[in-house]
């Protein structure tokens, strides 16, 4: 069976759930090889093993951290050359897609981005994508080179399965071209103690209707163990940081449950949450377009509804 390269998404060795999802998909296509770039590989090994990584390629050198995107592209290209994989899987985020794009050009490979499912077809992987704000589903395949596929977070439920997890250190060489865009400063995002927005099973989001007070939104999120999201109107008003914006120009989320409060449901917002499994909204305007999407909606003032609902959830949890 051929290898399937999976670029590990991690922060200093803390492996993100998205990587477990990719490893689960990779097992359908061949033998998953995790490609770990950066420091902390020891810490990552256990979790990579438990989702079926047969090999772990470890690349660790300062240059990989100091320059944008290209060193990772070169590392993956070299591994593709050496291992002739059946496919390369990456997480669909800003950086993942840029790596995928350059890798496709460099290795003469077809690229599919934002897949929500990957299956085995007659001629290699067949992907499913959800386009036009979720209104159309497309299946596609790569017809040239090694399929390079970026997969949206929360597209598949990770299934544990032990792999051999043989560690193979890989020597790193970084070209002059890769050193042309240097990262001169890095400020890690402060942890909120809440689940990561793109990985969370539940997201509670607030919009302009919060009037600037995200307190009730956060309290309800905490009662449900949820991540907090925001509409662009709330972000543009300075009420919540941009890192939490959901939508076309923010994060794409696909949780089990998405709760939109004080959000009208503009097309650009929908683009980032429409594939959520269950959608709930609280909005005082019965005509708000968000109600077209919901499984359950409350027409009412979010402040009173959220405060009361938070209390009841906490009471029921005992």
């Amino acid at each position: 069976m051929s290898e399937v390269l999976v670029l590990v998404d991690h922060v200093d060795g803390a492996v993100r759930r998205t990587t477990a999802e990719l490893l689960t998909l990779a097992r359908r296509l061949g033998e998953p090889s995790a490609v770990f770039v950066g420091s902390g590989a020891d810490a990552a090994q256990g979790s990579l093993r438990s989702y079926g990584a047969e090999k772990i390629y470890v690349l660790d050198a300062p240059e990989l951290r100091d320059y944008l995107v290209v060193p990772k592209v070169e590392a993956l290209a070299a591994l593709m050359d050496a291992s002739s994989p059946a496919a390369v899987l990456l997480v669909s985020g800003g950086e993942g897609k840029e790596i995928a794009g350059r890798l496709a050009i460099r290795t003469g490979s077809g690229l599919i981005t934002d897949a929500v499912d990957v299956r085995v077809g007659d001629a290699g992987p067949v992907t499913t994508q959800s386009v036009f704000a979720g209104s159309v589903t497309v299946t596609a395949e790569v017809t040239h080179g090694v399929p390079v596929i970026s997969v949206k977070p929360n597209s598949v439920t990770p299934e544990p399965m032990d792999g051999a997890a043989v560690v193979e250190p890989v020597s790193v060489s970084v070209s002059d071209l890769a050193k042309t865009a240097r990262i001169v400063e890095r400020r890690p995002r402060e942890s909120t103690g809440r689940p990561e927005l793109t990985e969370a099973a539940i997201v509670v989001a607030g919009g302009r209707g919060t009037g600037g007070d995200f307190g009730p939104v956060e309290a309800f999120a905490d009662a449900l163990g949820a991540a907090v999201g925001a509409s662009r109107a709330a972000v543009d008003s300075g009420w919540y940081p941009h890192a939490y914006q959901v939508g076309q120009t923010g994060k794409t989320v696909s949780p089990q449950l998405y709760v939109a409060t004080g959000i009208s449901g503009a097309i650009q917002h929908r683009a980032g949450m429409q594939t959520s499994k269950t959608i709930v909204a609280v909005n005082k305007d019965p005509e708000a377009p968000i109600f077209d999407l919901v499984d359950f909606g409350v027409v009412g003032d979010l402040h009173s509804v959220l405060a009361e609902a938070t209390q009841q959830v906490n009471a029921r949890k005992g």
Partner: protein
Amino acid sequence: MRIAVCVKYVPDASGHRTFGPDDTVDRVGVDGMLSELDEYAVEEALRIRDDLGGEVVIVTTGPEQARAAILKSLQMGADAGVHVLDDAIHGSDAVGTSYVLARALERQGADLVICGMASTDGSMGVVPAMLAERLRLPQVTLASEVTVDGSTVRIRRDGDAATEVVEARLPLLLSVTDQCNEPRYPSFKAIMAAKKKPVEVLTLADLGITADEVGLDSAWTRVVSHQERPPRSAGTIVTDDDGDGARQLVDFLAGQKFI
């Protein structure tokens, strides 16, 4: 400073966007416009030009109608346009599109190439990285803030796990997010002036590209099928008039095992 801005003509997101019979996005039969996210790229180019002097040239590839995207950019204040127009380009994927754009950009001798963060129809967000790869230019992408200091460009990039400051020297390729600036509305005077600005139309032959290198048949990916998703079935909507909305909401969540 010579700045080239890549802009895309896209179907209007508020209209009914659809696929044509050959599984490609229908850019001809529906109303289209300059991709909103490319307005930020045009605006950034204009600001840099107005600061440092120079020229802004708009580059697009797309059908006849795509000229509208160039025109809008010229109305905003860009100086000239280049439209790569050739029937053989139809159906190109990002790989093919970036190839055509790269060839068109090579002729521009630009110090700075600026792209949007993603197109509002395909929304792949990969063309800028592909262009940087093809043109062997430093890639300084997804900028939420841009400063040009002599020949050094510095950006703020809000990544998934961290905010980074990235620095590179001209010539380079930049892409900007919607956090970068506030695109201007064209004034009446600017709209009139745009009519006189030059737009060069180029074919694949002009760029030394043969028809079999691009287009639907030579794309490296293939759409197997597309399906309109059935609209979500209508949900339950309750009114909180009697103050019972929260309880019903919590009942629903409990019923779905979210609590």
